[in-house]
């Protein structure tokens, strides 16, 4: 069983057996989303912005976890004290693999709202246990994700330099994951609209809106029947 823990904004932890993968523990308006003492095996930041890297370095150091990210995120983590031997720079389409987990990054991009232009953001295709999770981070483009076979797809919906609701819905329609999870909404209406549209047009995708501290459990019943439970 895969447990997907939501902390809010774009921060998730994927827990399978003894392995915990923490995604984008960002800092928003000076506030941490994930506590420094969170214990993870792998901490990933998909880009170098504060809302992605946040206190990832601190958590990685505290829990002696691997820090994974693109070059920009890795540089930032390094400056914040992550030891070089625990730092791994992710390259597009080059998988990173440990027991039970295979992470394939794809180069996507987000709009840098403070500086303008685009900065690289990695979309992650995470095969963890017997589940395939797409986490496209902070992105305005979808890259190859529409062609990937995913059980769970986690997409931004806020439109602030990343996908708007329509883009997230459109990707769910094309990629047809079993479950679509919105994140990074700008208003309370965004996830509701995402849910409404995916339910109507998703053709097989179930929208699941997660609130902070909720846990989504996904598993294969009898080995072949996909099930999920939100607690």
């Amino acid at each position: 069983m895969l447990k997907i823990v939501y902390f809010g904004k774009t921060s998730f932890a994927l827990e399978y057996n003894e392995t915990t993968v923490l995604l984008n523990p960002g800092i928003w308006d000076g506030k941490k989303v994930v506590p420094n003492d969170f214990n993870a095996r792998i901490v990933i930041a998909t880009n170098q912005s504060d809302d992605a890297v946040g206190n990832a370095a601190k958590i990685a150091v505290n829990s002696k976890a691997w820090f994974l990210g693109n070059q920009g995120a890795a540089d930032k983590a390094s400056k914040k004290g992550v030891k070089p031997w625990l730092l791994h720079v992710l390259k597009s389409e080059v998988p990173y693999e440990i027991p039970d987990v295979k992470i394939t990054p794809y180069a996507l991009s987000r709009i840098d709202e403070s500086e303008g232009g685009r900065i690289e953001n990695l979309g992650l295709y995470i095969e963890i246990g017997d589940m395939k999770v797409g986490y496209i981070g902070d992105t305005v483009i979808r890259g190859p994700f529409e062609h990937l076979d995913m059980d769970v797809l986690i997409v931004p919906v806020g439109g602030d330099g990343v996908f708007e609701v329509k883009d997230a819905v459109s990707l769910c329609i094309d990629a047809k994951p079993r479950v679509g999870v919105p994140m990074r909404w700008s208003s309370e209406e965004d996830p509701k609209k995402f849910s409404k549209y995916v339910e109507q047009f998703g053709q097989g995708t179930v929208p699941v809106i997660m609130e902070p501290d909720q846990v989504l459990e996904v598993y294969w019943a009898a080995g072949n029947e996909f099930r999920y439970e939100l607690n």
Partner: protein
Amino acid sequence: MSERKKVVIDLEESEEVQLDGLSEMTSIDASGVMSVNNASERSRIWNVKVLLGETRDSTDISDDSLSAGEIDVGSSWETNYGVTVKAPIMTFKEVFDTCGTIETEEPHWAYVAGKENPVKITLTVTNETDGELDNIILNKTIPPELSNIEIVSAKSGTAEYDEGTKQVVWKDFVIYPRESSSLVISATGIVEDTEPKKAGEVVITYRGEGQQRSVLDPDLAALTEFLTGIETAETEPNQWQCTLECSNESDLIVRLDKAEVYLTPEDGGEKQKMIEETPSIELEPDQEWASSFEVESKSTPKCSQDLQYTPVKTVTKRVLGTLEKAAQEIPVYSIDYSKTFDPPSVSSFDKTPVEVTIEVTNNGSAKLDNFTIEDNLPDDVMPPKSEHITVWIKGEEYTGPYEFLIDPEDQDPEKPHKLTFRVENLKDSVGEVEPGESLKINYAIMAWRNRPEKEYPSPVICTANTDPAGIPAVMESPEDGHKLGVIYKKRAISTKKAINKGAAAGEYIVVLVVSNNGEVTAENIEVTDWIPAGFEYISTDPEDEAPEVFPVDTGGNYMVWTWQRMNPGDKKKLRVTVQGEGEYERREPEVTSI
């Protein structure tokens, strides 16, 4: 034979009835005039009294008898009185059906604005008595919005429409006891504004000869020229025959009700009644009546008399009625609508959810009971599922019964779809939609890769109706109305090519960089590059981007890459290794996409 003259007591009673616009009685007033008419040509009557007894109870007359005094030849005496009644002797109902061509249990009660309303007016009068009603004249005012007035049928009498006075007059008929008669009028009603209209008043006058509203049963007591006397004649010594003689000296018929004669005994004792008769005989003019007795007396008997007589009366009566029905108010039903897309425009070649909101407003003056909205979605739009519609009525979310059909029943974005929303019988759920209130529906559609050069009209037809349903009020857009806007987003796929020498002799590295520099996702991208004759394809980095390679008739090979989609900003860099001999001729790669 001369006419038998009697004193005439005449009761002329009248009733005035007011009905409201829906033919319900709002008031009834009844009154009467009682007159005593001396029909004599030469005889006065005096000491006239009209005797009413308990029959006055239904009136406001306070005395059992009324004194009329003296009434000269050909003159009369009269008095007025009020009568208490609860219902008229004639009832009336007007059915003003604004859509007479559609049979319904209850009539249609509102005009639809801007259309021809096939009006049918049925006027029914009913005689509620056991006597005939005659002298009936019915006047129906025809309102100005009606034209093509036709008398369809009149069960009895004659009916005509006078264009000048705008009146239908129905007359020359009687209604037999407990029967009804009807007049049917057809017309065309056209109203352009939504202010309530008046259906026209009805005024009926009628007469019930021999009928009365009170229960007065008057009798008469009076005197007139009437000669009486007692003749005493000795038939034998001390034997006398006494005869009471009466003679009607008037030209009226006089009824002798009592005749008594008393004899005063010679010795002065108590009077003895010698004649006691109640003949109740009606004496014609100059007719005489006598009665006698014999008595023994030494002197001429002394007799006295007591007579009661009165001119004979006859009672005539009638009821004159007037019924006025107020004009029925006919409201007008009309609708307006608005349709919005949110967002109003979508990016070309994108997939965008669009909220469609259609609001139908009752802008007439009649309540509306059912609505239909037909929305026509163009192709390149994915329709909603039938369960994904939200409905508001009167500003509140509506969860009652409705129908939402999608034709064809699928979500294929390549086909146009017709969406039909229908809600009926609101009066039994949330109540009819009042003037100024509205019904609103909302659903989402998915704009599906719309092309900028194409137009996407989404016309709508809204209808509404009353209960019972007549001709629907319709508002519709032009056939090319409500276009979903498509914002043109530039497509720009660039290909750059470099030919670099490889590590080995005759080996070249062809570098191809394909970028989506446009503002919109490109799909079905096909890039073709040419390998000159004498060279062959070896490999591609990255390996999973290997092209299809096939020979060209004119020499060399084509390498073809296809990608389903490239998002704005996407870039693909390919390093193709080729090997061969000769000059490596450069040709520019070709790229196509949609």
